[in-house]
């Protein structure tokens, strides 16, 4: 396993003290899907634009396969990129957009039809202008453009956005297959369920800074314990006097960093009857995400 994408101390400042990306470092490895998560405005798209050279970084470096992106002789054949499916000339047909990319990369013409088949755009749709495409059709076209050059690396910004359920399933299988064949995928998404199913590694960012990174299994395992008691107040008091930090949820459950084992002991000693006690990994990525990014959420204390 190799680090295919290496981001080191990346910082991007926009004027007047606005820091969109703040000293971000992470890697995306071959054979793995790396999920890139964070609330709105966290800096995911900015980071991805910097990786492919569309936005200049204020400081820090990005390497793709050991080289700067701009040093790749024919980038489309090594790195497939989809940043914004709507960023296409509205007056071109889908087929023309693929043809322009195919010609730029110097690929055989047959690749265009292959990609249209792969992303399930019919010939009739391919000959319509992108102006008249639905969101999901644009997304499919964008995915087709990214895959056109048969790259080793995929960088996708919210690719599942607008796809129908079958499309999402297809996309998930595609990314899994791509990584299993030794490809590298860096994927941002707000569909946490998708990320949870497909990603091997996670990078979580909030307000431009990395708040967590690691393998999905490690991160979810580290998420602590969910506990629920018949007498919630008594449980809270017991945990507080034991020095645990915890947060309560609207449904009456309480979540803490401590292990289920320790929470059980505390409850027993305080004679609190528990109705639920389990490791929090079952709570899943959404819990972890909301907790990790609580400080940076727009909605305030969402977790």
């Amino acid at each position, binding site marked *: *396993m*190799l*680090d295919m994408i290496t981001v080191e101390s990346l910082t991007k400042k926009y004027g007047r003290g606005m820091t969109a990306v703040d000293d971000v470092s*992470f*890697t995306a*490895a*071959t*054979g*793995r899907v790396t999920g890139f998560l964070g609330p709105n405005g966290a800096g995911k798209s900015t980071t991805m*634009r910097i990786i*492919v*050279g*569309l*936005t*200049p970084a204020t400081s820090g470096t990005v390497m793709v396969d050991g080289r700067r*992106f*701009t040093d*790749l*002789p*024919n*980038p*489309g*054949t*090594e790195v497939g*990129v989809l*940043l*914004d499916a*709507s*960023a296409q*000339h*509205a*007056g*071109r047909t889908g087929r023309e957009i693929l*043809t*322009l*990319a195919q*010609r*730029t*990369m110097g690929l055989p013409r047959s690749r265009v039809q292959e990609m249209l088949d792969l992303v399930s755009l019919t010939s009739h749709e391919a000959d319509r202008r992108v102006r008249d495409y639905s969101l999901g059709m644009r997304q499919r076209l964008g995915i087709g*453009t990214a895959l056109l050059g048969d790259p*080793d690396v995929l960088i996708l910004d919210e690719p599942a956005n607008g796809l129908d359920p079958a499309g999402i399933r297809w996309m998930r299988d595609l990314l899994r297959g791509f990584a*299993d*064949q*030794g*490809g590298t995928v860096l994927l941002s998404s707000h569909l946490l369920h998708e990320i949870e199913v497909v990603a091997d590694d996670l*990078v979580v960012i*909030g307000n431009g*800074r*990395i*708040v*967590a*990174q*690691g*393998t999905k299994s*490690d*991160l979810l395992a*580290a998420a602590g314990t969910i506990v629920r008691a018949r007498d919630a107040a008594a449980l809270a008091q017991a945990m507080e006097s034991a020095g645990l930090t915890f947060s309560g949820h609207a449904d009456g459950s309480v979540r803490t960093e401590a292990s289920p084992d320790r929470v059980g002991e505390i409850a027993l000693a305080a004679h609190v009857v528990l109705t639920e006690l389990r490791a929090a990994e079952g709570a899943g990525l959404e819990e972890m995400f909301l907790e*990790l990014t609580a*400080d*940076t959420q727009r909605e305030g204390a969402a977790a």
Partner: protein
Amino acid sequence: MTTTVLTPSTPATSQPDAVVGRTRRPQPRIPLTRIIGVELRKMFNTRSGFWLMASLVITNVLATAAIIVFAPDDQLTFDNFAAAIGAPMTVILPMIGILAVTSEWSQRSGLTTFTLVPHRGRVLRAKFLAATTVGVVSMFVALVVGVLGTLLGSAVAGVDPVWNVSAAHFALIVLGSVLGMLFGFMLGLVIRNSAGAIVTYFVYTLVLPPLLGLLAANQRWFADVQPWVDYSYAQRPLFEGTLTSQQWQHLAASGVLWFLLPMAVGLFVVRRAEVK
């Protein structure tokens, strides 16, 4: 803010070696000719682009027909055809030049373009050469239409065709038209917005010249420097077919001021700006 960083970030689970890194042979850099080909294609493959190109030919034919129908017999000379055909060209060619650049920003297709070729200078060089090619070729198309118009017009009127435009004069007209187109290209590069660049172009061609003319008529000092600093004024002799060496110097000096300098600034900015 607490930072939960689980190091090492690279996961410990090992993968079979077979799936690691697909081998591929080293690739050649994308040749400029290929980018030029793609940029030429982009000028035709949208509805607006296609009709802009088509309108070049259509206005050529309409202008020719109008001369044949309305001009008196002794006016059916090649220079009249050339002038009638040239007028719409000097408006349409700059539009083509503008859109060749601005569509990447206004339509946001630059996101793909500059990712596939992450060297903006190369893409813009290709666009420049593609636009120039279109400009020169369309002038030769216009030449053919003008020749046919002259032959047809004089045949209809029963007079001998009058060929009163020399090859050298035609070359100057081509130069003047292409310079106009490249001025549009420069505006596109500096403004990077289709509507803004087009409006600026019309201010430059329709509003500015009478104002500068008024200034020259009333201010002695400006009348003296105008040929040196007024680019469109300096271009006019090109269409008349002869330039003195001093007029060439006027063209060069005003060209540096109105074309090369802004172009350099535009290039400098575009190569550093964010594409989003």
